[in-house]
């Protein structure tokens, strides 16, 4: 652990190998399916990396890692709850997630490129990976190191922002 805090990637890999089964077992009851389980496990290790400074060297590693797992689990529950609440209040959410292919009409590609350039990088990546490259949200989440819910949200927000931007450019014309 001290080697990992010193910036050694090999130490992280060793730590992952030693703990991943236990972390997976920890989430196995709460996760809905295998994909969600893998997301939670990866989120835990990613959060462990982000919170590396909170580990105090003289203490055992496992309670610290499971403390982080508890944090990730709580956050995931809250995110799922928010997502459900949002879905029930916004009927257009599914529509937002769908590719805006038929919406394009007379919008030219330069407008789309300009509108894409205005999006925050995280939102743009999620949107491009899903709508252009056809990736699934779990795959995007894994690639970007975020939760599936976050990937969906980013893509949805990007779609909404693009629509607004393109509507504006159409009116300008």
């Amino acid at each position, binding site marked *: 652990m001290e080697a990992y805090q010193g910036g050694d990637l090999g130490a992280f890999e060793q730590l992952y*190998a030693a703990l991943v089964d236990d972390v997976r077992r920890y989430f196995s009851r709460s996760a809905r399916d295998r994909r969600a389980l893998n997301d939670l496990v990866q989120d835990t290790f990613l959060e462990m990396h982000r919170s590396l400074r909170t580990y105090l060297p003289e203490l055992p590693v496992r309670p610290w890692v499971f403390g982080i797992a508890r944090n990730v689990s709580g956050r995931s529950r809250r995110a799922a709850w928010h997502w459900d609440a949002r879905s029930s209040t916004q009927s257009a959410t599914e529509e937002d997630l769908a590719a805006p292919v038929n919406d394009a009409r007379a919008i030219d590609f330069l407008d789309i490129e300009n509108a894409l350039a205005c999006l925050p990088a995280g939102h743009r990546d999620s949107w491009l990976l899903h709508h252009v490259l056809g990736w699934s949200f779990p795959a995007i989440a894994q690639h970007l190191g975020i939760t599936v819910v976050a990937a969906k949200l980013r893509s949805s927000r990007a779609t909404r922002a693009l629509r607004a931007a393109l509507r504006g450019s159409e009116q300008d014309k």
Partner: protein
Amino acid sequence: MSDTRVPPALAAAVAANLRPVRPLASPWRRALALLPLGIALLVGMPAFWSWRSHIDVFAPWPWRALSPLETIAGLLVLAAAFREAVPGRELSARALWALLGAAGATFLSINLVSAASVDVAPATALRWLRDCFAMAIAFSGPTLLLPAWLVSRALPNRPALTGALCGLGVGFMADAGLRALCWDGEHAHILIAHGGAIAMLMALGAAGTTVVERIRR
């Protein structure tokens, strides 16, 4: 036994910003770093009060002797809050109840020691009550930002509880300063104005830390 190799995306994310980090100091050391803050509240509040209100009569000496004890109690509570903020180091239910019980007992025993009836008109008593409450919140509200920031550098699993403990610690330190200048020893005054300010700081700390954690994560 499943695959124990690091998934490529995770390895890439970790490698992208892997650099040596300095571990956080122990909770006790971080709480001790706030000692100047405690001293500032202990000395600053009476000084500001006497400057603003042109008064030179403070609380009786024996009461003031209790103030440093209260500052130390505040630092101990802050240390517990910093410990609570570290994953895997959360306080057990028993430790938490012991801490809250000790904090309550400290506050009540100091209250009992400095109890003295004051014969003033109800309007004056009400004004003193408002003054003490406002003074404690005005001084310790901004002060609460520092421990809240220290807490947010860790990863609290129970942000509301961690923030409430921060509020309790800062509230104790503020009450130490307040006690040195307040000569109203009525139980009602101490419980409502001084205790109420501590409760308000706990609520502010809980709300603030929860909001910060929601935004950060």
